[in-house]
């Protein structure tokens, strides 16, 4: 990962500020490489799937731009090919992407000042963008770094989809097992986030949530696990409200 920014105060002089901005964008692009390992092959898989389902090629980039959520798009290709009723599609989108509701709690949107950039950052708040940001120490985060990473991720996703479309006829199917890159990425980011904030309780509660979710609702495990996790955190908060919130002060956004 990138070295910490040497200049914590960007308002010192124009020249260093520009250099810092460039460094931040470069750091954001570097952040995106590891996410790209998972996103790019998935994009190719999406393009291949669209062609194999007999759908028009432009659906791959159009889905990528309109949804920009990998797991959902792979799911939608089959539903669209079967001409599933629109109401069922709407419900599927709602359930599968509901997890993004929880990202708002800790996604550092307050770093982004420009309203258009802010809108883009929200639109492009995919799992990988949330995850890469969450594993960065707070002092290393910045708007240019975050946006550069998000734009790069979208380029990998749309680009992968177009390559998959082009490959569609040539290859029998995507290479088996490449989707494991996402699992490896999230594992590594969990390790990094764990190092920078020693949240043993959060990991234990998350582990309990995901175990219960996988046993009870394997079809929508992510959705159930996040709901349970939030419920457990609320319970934890209720139990610990009387303790001094020193850690909260360290993490909280500036009001």
């Amino acid at each position, binding site marked *: 990962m990138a070295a910490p920014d040497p200049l914590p105060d960007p308002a010192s002089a124009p020249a260093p500020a520009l250099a810092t901005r460039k460094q931040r964008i470069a750091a954001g692009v570097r952040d995106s490489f590891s996410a790209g390992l998972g996103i790019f092959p998935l994009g190719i898989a999406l393009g291949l799937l669209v062609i194999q389902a007999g759908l028009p090629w432009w659906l791959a980039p159009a889905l990528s731009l309109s949804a920009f959520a990998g797991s959902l798009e792979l799911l939608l290709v089959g539903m669209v090919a079967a001409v599933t009723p629109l109401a069922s599609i709407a419900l599927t989108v709602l359930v599968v992407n509901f997890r993004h509701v929880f990202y708002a709690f800790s996604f550092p949107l307050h770093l982004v000042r420009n309203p258009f950039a802010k809108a883009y950052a929200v639109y492009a708040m995919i799992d990988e963008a949330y995850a890469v940001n969450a594993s960065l120490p707070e002092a290393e985060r910045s708007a240019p770094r975050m946006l550069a990473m998000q734009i790069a991720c979208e380029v990998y996703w749309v680009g992968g989809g177009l390559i998959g479309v082009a490959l569609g006829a040539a290859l029998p199917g995507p290479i088996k097992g490449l989707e494991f890159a996402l699992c490896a990425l999230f594992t590594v980011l969990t390790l990094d986030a764990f190092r920078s904030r020693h949240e043993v309780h959060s990991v234990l509660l998350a582990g309990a949530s995901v175990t219960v979710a996988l046993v009870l609702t394997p079809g929508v495990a992510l959705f159930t696990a996040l709901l349970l996790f939030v419920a457990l955190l609320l319970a934890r908060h209720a139990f610990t409200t009387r303790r001094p919130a020193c850690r909260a002060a360290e993490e909280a*956004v500036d009001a």
Partner: protein
Amino acid sequence: MPSTSYLVAVLTIVFTITLALRAVPFAVLRTLRTSPIVRQLSAWMPVGILAILAVTALHGSVAAEPHTTSYALLAVAVTVGVHLACGRRTILSVGIGTAVYVALVNAL
């Protein structure tokens, strides 16, 4: 083959719902910035959400082909090992872990 108007309707629905799910919570939370619960949750959530994403992604890999469970667990161990042993270089860890899984799944 579905009609173009059906495809456009799907794209519109997908775009609207996805963006709303991402945007509306920010608008709601802006008014709750100073709430102790929101501050506490925003500090506690990231590492747990990452762990949940890791486990569900692992489950997704394994659910498609259950006989690959042991390969996937081995690949996770390799990923963690490489990450801790080689200076936490994310691309290296993810790359080697994925290569191990792809090699095992395709060779065995």
